[in-house]
């Protein structure tokens, strides 16, 4: 089950590998394995609707940087975390720009809600809309 934080309709086309996506000009959805370079996607944002980033183990943090790079580079489509995605990482994943989640084990909706609301402030700007406290302090 996919948990989505987007208002648009889900893009149902199956995601293809990064190699395939780069050569198939009609592909709109890509799956990126941990360690693959998402900067290769930057020239193709106009046709990209869904990026699925693999989390083979929840402790593998490469996907966080991949997501940040995509958002910084202007990608606005769906960004999905797939795999070993757990509730205790969901806040950081959201802050890095993930807006959909396809966890192997289903997430408890109540815990997700708590996790996303728990911290009232953040210290640093990221890919989400949260305003860092230095900005709140100085108006």
């Amino acid at each position, binding site marked *: 089950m996919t948990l989505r934080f987007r208002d648009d309709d889900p893009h149902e086309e199956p995601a293809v590998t990064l190699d395939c996506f780069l050569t198939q000009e009609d592909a709109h959805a890509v799956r990126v394995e*941990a*360690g693959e*370079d998402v900067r290769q996607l930057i020239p193709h944002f106009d046709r990209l609707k869904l990026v699925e980033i693999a989390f083979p183990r*929840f*402790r*593998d*943090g*490469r996907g*966080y*940087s*991949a997501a*940040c790079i995509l958002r*910084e580079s202007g990608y606005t489509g769906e960004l999905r975390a797939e795999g070993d995605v*757990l509730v*205790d*990482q969901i*806040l*950081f*994943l959201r*802050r*890095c720009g993930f807006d959909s989640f396809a966890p192997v084990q289903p997430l408890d909706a109540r815990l997700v809600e*708590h*996790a996303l609301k*728990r*911290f*009232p*402030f*953040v*210290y*640093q*700007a*990221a890919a989400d809309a949260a305003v860092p*406290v*230095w900005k*709140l*302090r*100085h108006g």
Partner: protein
Amino acid sequence: MYKYDLYDQAIIDARVDEFRDQVRRRIAGEITEDQFKPLRLKNGLYLQLHAYMLRVAIPYGTLSSRQLRMLARIARTYDRGYGHFTTRQNIQYHWIKLEQAPDILAELATVEMHAIQTSGESIRNISADHYAGAAADEIEDPRPWAELLRQATTFHPEFSYLPRKFKIAVTASPVDRAALRWHDFALRIVRDEARDTGFEVFAGGGMGRTPFLAYPIRAFLPAEQIFSYLQAVLRVWNRHARRDNIHKQRMKILVHELGEAEFTRQVEEEFGHVLKLGTDFPRVEYERISAHFAPPPFETGLSEDIDRSDPEFALWVDRQTVPHKAPGYAIVNVSLKKVGGIGGDVSAEQMDAVADVAEAFSFDELRVSHAQNLVLPHVRKQDLYMVWQALDAAGLADINLDLVTDIIACPGLDYCSLANARSIPVAQKIATRFADLDRQLDVGELKIKVSGCINACGHHHAGHIGILGVDRKGTENYQLLLGGSGAEDASPAKITGPGFDEDGIVDAVERAVERYRALRDPGERFLDTYRRVGFEPFKEAIYG
């Protein structure tokens, strides 16, 4: 000292709430130990041989007396009446119950303390010169930058699941008291020709099983770009480090494998991207933080005279105090290295006693040094005798700063599940062998560092004399290393040859020390003599 505002307080209060819920879910079996482990490590909670260990952050080693009294209270209420100051200027408690850990964090939060990112694959508590704000030789106080980086790196969403731990140090003096080049990322405050503040940046250092000194990656980085630059370094490492072998995931390995030039090129390229995002904290925020570190109201016109009529006191003054930047003041080092004791260990009663002294005589401020001692940073010279008496009454007036008995030792096999050998008894036996103060003073500066396994928590790579405990066919065996340094003349120590048993290593240390005494030129430290004459004369003395 930095004081939390409502934002800082709300963030650490939320953290306590989060961890309480995580512990509850773990105890209820809703999450597995594998899932829980990184969560507890990010809150400083290790599982050791006999119990949980909780490591509490002491940012850049600075404490108020109120905070130290809370640390004493935690020792009394939740542990066995003592705590252990660490080589990263933190404190850890070794007999903690999991279900009480959230209550401890809640108590810490009432005095603006926490255990955030003191362990695990995260950006660790940032260390700094323990004489910061007091040292006569510093360019400026490095702690405002350390606090700015503390905030910037706390719960950083992109860098909370790093390949391994990541350690940062900041200093502002030509003399290195923070072991800069043994860090993943190290900053030394410098000024350019226009007198603007910047950082000399080092990257890729670390101890562990493969020691590397950090190399200079940037001669001058404008200070206000530091967060962008740090994020660029972290991103290069986070994206490209190996993830298949925990022993090869520290940043030092990536730097080594890519080569310094290629690593630097990638960092600079990434820095170009990150800088444009505008995530650096603005000048006005640095100024807000910096105001918290304004010098205390030092008195002027104070006497420089110290009544040295008590010979014990005079010896203590000569060894344990160092020059302060303000006339009439001194920096006092409080030894936690009693001969025969456990280095870095302090009882709750002693913590309270030192807190009282700091409150009365040091503008309510204390420091923890990476050598596991305490510092009273701002003491009037005219008060030194009273300070000495108060410390002596608490059993804390030992005289051995940087001497042969001022030994750094990791907890070792007495506590740690990673250790191969005990460290504490070896340190105790060496200290006992050299207990005579005249002999210690004659030997002079000699930094001995003992680790109970190759993870090197006792910094044996950086010891003038290093000792590494290993497991050799089921018995504890100790290897001797010579020539390391964690100071501005940093160097990795070199293994001398076959190891020794517990008594044998004490004898070997003594033979090395005696060879130094025979070979030294006037004024030479052990390390200087070793560097001048080389390895062979020592090897011959040790192995005969």
